[in-house]
């Protein structure tokens, strides 16, 4: 019987791997996701057939059905399904990053809870004897620590993205030292737990430390770096789930967790590479705090030229080629549909329109792609950094919508700038730049943008959706 369960878990693992493989292309990606969901369902059904010693997990030692446990399982499943599906259906596309953060945190919380429940059983269960107690103890304790960090860390990330908390880095004196202290404390507790038998106080102490660490590690990270944080915490939850697989001797958990842990890490490092900043700088750099602004120092001098939708429309009217550069501002203003409308009108007049998507534009990798896809912008019109940068010098108008740091030329020229070295979109090389922005406030990195002072740059102040809609209307 237990052979069949393991076969089912193997099939689940294969669906997970195939799903990630199908994610390689936009046409097959959806099938991949559904396949993984089906695999998950299979694993859950198989789990109900597990045995506890010599009897089914659904029955107790004297053969009675565990009705209370089953009732609670049913209630939790129904509640979770309704709430999960409802919130996932209702959420705006622009709020997707925080939704992912929230679900990720819940996953981390589930891992920590499983560790809490398994801990006392480590010392009584005889079933998994093939695994030495030391290993099961170490993996339980580690999954508790990582799951706990992921839980509260994701909740803070959610709070920052939902703007319940300030998006600015929140720092305090001695922060790094205190965090280091927490970390050392956690290591000491792990050592204590590892070298002794069952000890509840240090175990729950470690849980408390993990929860505190999640908060204190994420609070000092700025809103713009949240995509990296979510991706990293996603990887954390994956690792923690994999470790829980060690404890439970469960292959579905082992493989699922291992896959996510590894892929999440790759994705995280990819994002850091796109910003040309090491991961340590993202996590500990408090990027975009006041200190970073002062460090950049060089406040560029010049005048800002503002324009109106009517004047901008005239410029578009005489353009032959336009590149649209979307940023977080477009997401906030929900302007993707009017942007697409503007692009369609321009295309109808024979203008060549392309979209330039920076790898870290928005609050998640590929955030802009999702929004533009929502607005039915054909996939073929989207270009990434390497493909589009050579096109800017031959472009009449670069329309920047709510993007800032990713088009800041200081990244190329100003060595003292915190973003120096980050690959940017070279919009400043276009003949005219129109920047649609709410005001002169700096971007999330907290740095002035000298682009806005260039003579060929015009500022179209106001809400992106209203401004672009007006522009499109005048363009008739």
């Amino acid at each position, binding site marked *: 019987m237990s052979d069949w369960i393991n076969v089912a878990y193997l099939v*689940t*693992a294969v669906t997970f*791997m195939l799903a*990630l493989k199908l*994610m*390689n292309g*936009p046409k097959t*990606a*959806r099938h991949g*996701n559904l396949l*993984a*969901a089906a695999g*998950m369902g299979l*694993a859950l059904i198989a789990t109900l057939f597990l045995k506890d010693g010599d009897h089914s997990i659904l029955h107790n030692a004297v053969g009675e059905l565990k009705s*209370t*446990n089953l009732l*609670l399982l049913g209630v939790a*499943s129904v*509640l979770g*399904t309704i709430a*999960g599906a409802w919130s*996932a*259906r209702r*959420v705006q596309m622009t709020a997707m990053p925080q*939704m992912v953060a929230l*679900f*990720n945190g819940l*996953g981390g*919380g589930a*891992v920590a*809870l*499983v560790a809490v*429940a398994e801990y006392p059983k480590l010392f009584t269960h005889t079933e998994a004897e093939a695994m*030495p107690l030391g290993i099961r103890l170490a993996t339980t304790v580690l999954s508790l620590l990582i799951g706990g960090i992921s839980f509260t860390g994701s909740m803070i990330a959610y709070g920052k993205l939902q703007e319940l908390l300030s998006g600015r880095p929140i720092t305090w004196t001695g922060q790094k030292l205190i965090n280091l202290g927490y970390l050392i404390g956690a290591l000491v507790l792990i050592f204590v737990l590892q070298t002794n038998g069952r000890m509840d106080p240090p175990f729950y102490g470690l849980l408390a430390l993990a929860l505190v660490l999640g908060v204190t590690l994420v609070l000092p990270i700025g809103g713009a770096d949240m995509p990296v944080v979510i991706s990293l915490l*996603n990887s954390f*939850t994956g690792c923690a*789930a*994999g470790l829980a697989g060690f404890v*439970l001797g*469960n292959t579905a958990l*082992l493989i*699922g*967790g*291992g*896959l*996510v842990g*590894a*892929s*999440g890490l*790759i*994705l995280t490092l990819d994002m850091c590479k796109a910003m040309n900043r090491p991961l340590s700088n993202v996590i500990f750099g408090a990027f975009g705090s006041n200190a970073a602004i002062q460090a950049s120092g060089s406040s560029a001098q010049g005048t800002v030229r503002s324009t109106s939708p009517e004047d901008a429309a005239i410029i578009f009217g005489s353009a032959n080629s336009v590149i649209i550069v979307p940023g977080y501002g477009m997401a906030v203003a929900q302007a993707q549909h009017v942007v697409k*409308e503007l692009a*369609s009108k321009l295309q109808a007049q024979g203008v060549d329109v392309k979209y330039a998507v920076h*790898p870290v534009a928005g609050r998640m*990798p*590929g955030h802009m792609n*999702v929004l533009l*896809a*929502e607005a039915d912008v054909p996939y073929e019109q989207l270009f*990434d950094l390497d493909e589009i940068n050579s096109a800017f010098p031959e472009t009449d108008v670069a329309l920047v919508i709510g993007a800032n740091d990713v088009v800041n030329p200081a990244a190329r020229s100003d060595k003292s700038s915190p973003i120096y070295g980050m690959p940017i979109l070279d919009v400043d090389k276009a003949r005219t730049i129109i920047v649609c922005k709410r005001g002169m406030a700096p971007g999330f990195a907290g740095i002035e943008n000298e682009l806005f002072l260039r003579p060929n740059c015009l500022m179209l102040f106001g809400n992106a959706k209203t401004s672009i809609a007006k522009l499109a209307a005048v363009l008739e």
Partner: protein
Amino acid sequence: MTLIAVITIFVLAVFVGLEVIAKVPQTLHTPLMSATNAIHGVILVGGVIVLLRADDTVGLAIGFLAVLFGVLNVVGGFVVTDRMLEMFKRKPRSDK
């Protein structure tokens, strides 16, 4: 399962994860992150085991929460990913 078997499975899974992901285009990174987010919801399996094995009130409460969190992670994760991917699949249509 023996320790070495378990470690083998885990290490191989990590390598598959590294290989499979390296080829995913940037456009799909958000849905990818969201899909892997749903996949680690497989911890729900652990939650179900814990809840079914619970034999006291505290154990039941912990198991209940673990399952609830796990289900939210799984269902929410897959539904959100599906919504994102649905948009990529749609054919570009002419303006209304």
